[in-house]
């Protein structure tokens, strides 16, 4: 590393010399490329990213199903390096068929203390997932979250029931897919 630094210094000095004198010397250009990076993934305990949310049956006749179950086992990790003045955001959508009257919501919580840099901010309220992408984390610049669970943004999933559509509700289980994308914001 030290030798690399020496090399850099030497190159910068060398360029300086080139600029100052245009005779009797010979030079070449050096391009230092810092790559743009946008890598993101979902992490769950034991590498498992499939989750289950179950409505609870009432114990008292006359009451409806309880949809208050939540799941907070998954984490959003990312690494981002942007160009000057640029930022990124993470968006989410859902594909597949939800049970009649049921909505799936997700919210990014407070970011972990791990990682470095500008890791953006979570959208304040839970978003109701739909087929079109919606922002969940915005204003990400150059930063990284750390890798694995307990790093990055915790994701809390919840359900909501449209009580006026209760008659469309059917017993059973349905699996849907939630997709996250890190993409340019500007």
């Amino acid at each position: 590393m030290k030798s690399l630094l020496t090399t850099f210094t030497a190159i910068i000095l060398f360029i300086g010399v080139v600029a100052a004198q245009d005779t009797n010397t010979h030079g070449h250009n050096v391009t230092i490329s810092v790559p743009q990076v946008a890598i993101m993934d979902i992490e769950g305990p034991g590498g498992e990213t499939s989750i289950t949310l179950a409505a609870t049956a009432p114990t008292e006749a006359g009451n409806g199903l309880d949809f208050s179950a939540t799941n907070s086992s998954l984490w959003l990790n990312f690494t981002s390096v942007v160009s000057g003045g640029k930022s990124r955001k993470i968006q989410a959508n859902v594909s597949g068929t939800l049970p009649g009257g049921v909505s799936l919501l997700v919210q990014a919580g407070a970011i972990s203390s791990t990682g470095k840099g500008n890791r953006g901010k979570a959208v304040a309220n839970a978003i109701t997932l739909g087929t079109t992408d919606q922002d969940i984390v915005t204003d990400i610049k150059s930063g990284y979250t750390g890798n694995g669970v307990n790093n990055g943004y915790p994701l809390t999933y919840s359900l909501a029931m449209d009580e006026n559509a209760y008659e469309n509700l059917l017993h059973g289980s349905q699996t849907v897919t939630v997709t996250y994308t890190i993409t340019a914001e500007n």
Partner: protein
Amino acid sequence: MKRGILVILLSILFATTARTQSSQSHQVRIVIPKVALIDVESAGSATVVLSLGKPNEAGHGLQAAAQNASGYWINYSSVLASGQPERKVMASLSGTAPEGIKVLLEASSYSGEGKGKNGISSGKKILSGEPTEIISNIGSCYTGNGVNNGHLLTFSLEVDEEKYEAVRHGDFENLRVTYTLTE
């Protein structure tokens, strides 16, 4: 110079591994349990008392009992499976009913704080040891819990004129009505 080339090579290496957009998906399984619950609610726990009226005039028969809005409400919660037929509420009478007397029961139309496809009253039905449908067409729904939710039960008595000779004076207790939520 050699080191300079190394730096350039490293830079190129970094650049080729760069990614500027990334997506990832995961699955969410949503489970809806099957539900079939029924109970009967009342403000108190009073037994329903039904009495036939005496005739006012010699030569007339016993009068049918006035309608007794019992204060009992049927509450239920139901979640159907796909393709499952709608549910209904059946009522049956156990114990020794007085001979020559018909016990009738009518569930009101649904009212309350519930949601979904609540049932439809089957009208006034004569109760017997065999389950009789009193509410039908129950889909995925709930009635709300407690009195003033669901279907109010109204009882009445009638003399079976064909069996008038079998009618005997007395109190007939320990009759029990059982309600079942079924397909």
